[in-house]
């Protein structure tokens, strides 16, 4: 099955894994967090959701993860992702305060019934990736804000999932760590071929990482523009300094200004 | 082998249960084919419930009112013997508060809930005591000793001695039975079914108990006292002696009818007298078929009279 998929993918006809069709989400009967939001996610996509604070990015992500139900419209899951091979990085670190860093990262394995020893190497490796190999036995309350977020990222990546939903995972990190993790994320994606939906408020990040940027506007939260970033992967520092990159950023930035303008 | 039966008392082992322990100790029960186990009662132990549930065969009832109450609720229990002819229920006061019981009517009295539901009602109806004057007695006499202006209920053989020892004064004691509270006490009670189906067992138990009481009161009671002290290690010889003296002095066990009919005597006349008093006091209903609450079939036959010293 996976083999067939890969084949289709290379032909440019990647199977759909997720679809939001004219989804509305209203809170308390009056806060319209999302209105008529449609989004199709194909296998292997790297989609960024970009938009002003409070426009409904997190809400959309929760809907996609199945943690929340639309007020109207529908969400379709297809293929392997429907079986739950899925990871999420929430906007808050969401660590278990009673567990050490290593235990927190172990969680997804633990829930699959895998002992710590059997996955120790994976846990250590991913913690090295996020630069926390020395904090294996620390409790969350002993970590800085950025370190907590990195633990959360490590937990999401440790299982090499097929679908990753990330909600501003790098917002609490300094630029250098952020750049490094951007690259690591792309490397991982190249290696395991997963699908990623990525919420960010950084234009640069969205352009650098994704093959599709979805720009949203607030009140009511909706998609106002969606454009592909057709630069080939792997992308490196060369891409970051290219004119193409700058043009994309400008376009995304303009879209974002437009989104903001409509509110202000 | 002997038939196993159980007898639940109404309190921790004490001299007031002496006759029964005596009969166990000297084999009187065993002689007529019973292997009796005495189950001591206690502050909250409910042996009657155990008997009603078929877990015990005989229990000790406090007074006839309990039988009337049972009858009123159609509970098929029967009193088959009355170990005490008078209930040793007393009222204590500090010295010099009155001459007779009726003099205490203005006084605050510590009365237990049970007492309130029985003799106090009768005192209210016949002597003009007042509900408002009653305070709850939780079997702790300290408030009484502390306050000379209140009285309290007590058991003839325990509170007076205790107050004297701890409070350092000899309280005035009023035996309620002497003022017309004419109930029997420490009755042997069993299920109506037992009386009907196993009269032999009942007879043996009653006869044994009667003889036991004679032996306990008038002969060597050391074996019984040993059993009592085994069941209740806190019991002292002092207290046993005091209690026996009081029982004898006040004719609790052996007086009146028993002199001719033998210990345990129950007579229709006495029961009727008490019943009428209770009806008058409004404690029981007049239409109660009180006759079914007791049986004279096992007593009044002079059993054990031969054991009584002639004097």
């Amino acid at each position, binding site marked *: 099955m996976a083999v067939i998929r890969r084949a289709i993918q290379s032909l440019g006809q990647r199977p759909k894994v997720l679809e939001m069709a004219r989804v509305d989400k209203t809170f308390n009967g009056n806060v319209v967090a999302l209105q008529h939001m449609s989004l199709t996610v194909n296998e292997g996509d790297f989609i960024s959701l970009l938009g002003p604070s409070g426009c409904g990015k997190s809400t959309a992500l929760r809907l996609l993860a199945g943690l929340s*139900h639309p007020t109207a419209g*529908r969400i379709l899951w*297809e293929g392997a992702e*429907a079986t739950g091979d899925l990871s999420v990085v929430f906007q808050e670190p969401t660590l278990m305060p009673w567990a050490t860093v290593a235990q927190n990262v172990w969680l997804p394995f633990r829930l699959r019934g895998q002992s710590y020893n059997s996955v120790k190497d994976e846990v250590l490796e991913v913690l090295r990736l996020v630069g926390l190999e020395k904090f294996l036995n620390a409790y969350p309350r002993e970590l800085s804000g950025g370190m907590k977020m990195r633990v959360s990222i490590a937990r999401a990546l440790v299982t090499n999932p097929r679908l990753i939903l990330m909600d501003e995972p790098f917002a609490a990190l300094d630029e250098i760590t952020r750049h490094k993790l951007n690259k690591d994320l792309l490397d991982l994606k190249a290696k395991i071929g997963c699908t990623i939906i990525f919420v960010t408020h950084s234009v640069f990040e969205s352009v650098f990482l994704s093959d599709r940027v979805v720009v949203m506007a607030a009140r009511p939260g909706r998609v106002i523009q969606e454009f592909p970033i057709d630069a080939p992967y792997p992308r490196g520092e060369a891409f970051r300094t290219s004119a193409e990159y700058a043009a994309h950023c400008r376009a995304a930035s303009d879209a974002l200004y437009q989104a903001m303008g409509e509110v202000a | 082998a002997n038939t196993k039966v159980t007898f639940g008392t109404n309190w921790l082992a004490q001299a007031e249960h002496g006759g029964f322990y005596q009969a166990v100790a000297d084999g009187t029960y065993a002689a007529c084919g019973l292997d009796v186990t005495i189950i001591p009662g206690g502050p909250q132990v409910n042996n009657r419930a155990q008997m009603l549930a078929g877990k015990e065969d005989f229990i000790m009832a406090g007074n006839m009112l309990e039988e009337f109450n049972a009858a009123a609720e159609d*509970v098929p229990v029967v009193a088959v013997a009355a170990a005490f002819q008078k209930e040793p229920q007393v009222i204590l006061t500090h010295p010099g508060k009155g001459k007779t019981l009726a003099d205490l009517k203005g006084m605050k009295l510590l009365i237990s*809930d049970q007492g*309130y539901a029985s003799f106090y009602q009768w005192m209210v109806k016949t002597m003009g005591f007042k509900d*408002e004057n009653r305070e709850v007695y939780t079997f702790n006499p300290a408030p009484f000793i502390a306050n000379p202006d209140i009285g309290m209920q007590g058991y003839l053989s325990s509170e007076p001695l205790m107050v004297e020892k701890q409070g350092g004064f000899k309280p005035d004691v009023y035996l309620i039975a002497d003022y017309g509270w004419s109930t029997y006490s420490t009755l042997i009670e069993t299920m109506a079914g037992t009386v009907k189906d196993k009269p032999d067992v009942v007879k043996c138990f009653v006869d044994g108990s009667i003889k036991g009481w004679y032996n306990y009161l008038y002969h060597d009671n050391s074996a019984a006292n040993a059993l009592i002290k085994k069941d209740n290690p806190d019991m002292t010889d002092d207290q046993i002696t005091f209690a026996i003296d009081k029982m004898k002095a006040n004719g609790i066990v052996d007086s009146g009818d028993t002199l001719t009919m033998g210990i345990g005597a129950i007579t229709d006349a006495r029961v009727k007298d008490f019943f009428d008093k209770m009806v008058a006091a409004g404690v029981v209903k007049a239409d109660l078929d009180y006759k079914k609450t007791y049986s004279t079939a096992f007593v009044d036959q002079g059993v054990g009279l031969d054991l009584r010293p002639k004097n």
Partner: protein
Amino acid sequence: MTIAETGAPAAEVAVDLEEQRRARNQRVEKIGRWLLPVLVMAAAILLWDRIVVWNAIPKYILPGPFLVIQTLIQDAGILFPALLVTLEITLMALSVAVIGGAGLAILFTQNRWVEMSFYPFAVILQVTPVVSVAPLIFIYVSNRLVGLLLCAWLVAFFPVLSNTTLGLRSADHNLRDMFSIYGATRWQRLRYLQIPSALPYFLGGLRIAGGLSLIGAVVAEYVAGTGGIGSGLAFRILEAGYRLNIPRMFAALLLIAFTGVAIFAVLSFISHLLLHKWHESAVKRET
């Protein structure tokens, strides 16, 4: 599953089913929320009845539910006034327990020295058998009501104290720092930070104390006696037990049980009102 083109209709049907299922679930829940407890209670009563009938248990051991209810109706004239008396003491005892328990908790969290020194006394009070100290209380407390409340308080105050102390200590440390920075006085910190933080814990303690107050009232009545006129349910239970009027005893117990459930329900409702806007345990998440 198949690829998207053919998958979509199938999925659509599935989603419709899913939606229907959710809507149905919601309807079911709305009804079930009231119906189910009632049904279960009815089933329990029926079971009780059957047990009594099948085992031919005489009424003086365990009366059947219908007899009990019948007695309840018959003796309503005796039992309901008694209930009122008990209820009055219960509510007063609960107030005293809440004021005493929460007050002590606040005192204790103000100063660690005070807490270290006096918490042991609170524990001692909790474990002191009321029955034993009641006579002492009534020697020194001449006002009967005060004595009664003191007894009931002894029974009920500790859960409030313990839970409130825990809650007052569980205030978020970042918020505590925030209050320090703004130079909050001790009283402001208590009023605006610690008390709201402690609320869920306090309300948990309150729900425990609700039942304990009722028990406390029964015990207090038992040791202090409201005897005779104006006596409460405790006296009725004792009296009925003494008279072997077991159906009436059970009727009184039933009243106590219902009172307990009612108190619990009221306290839960208050708890819901105070917490549903913000606390995890009470918030109904929209999904």
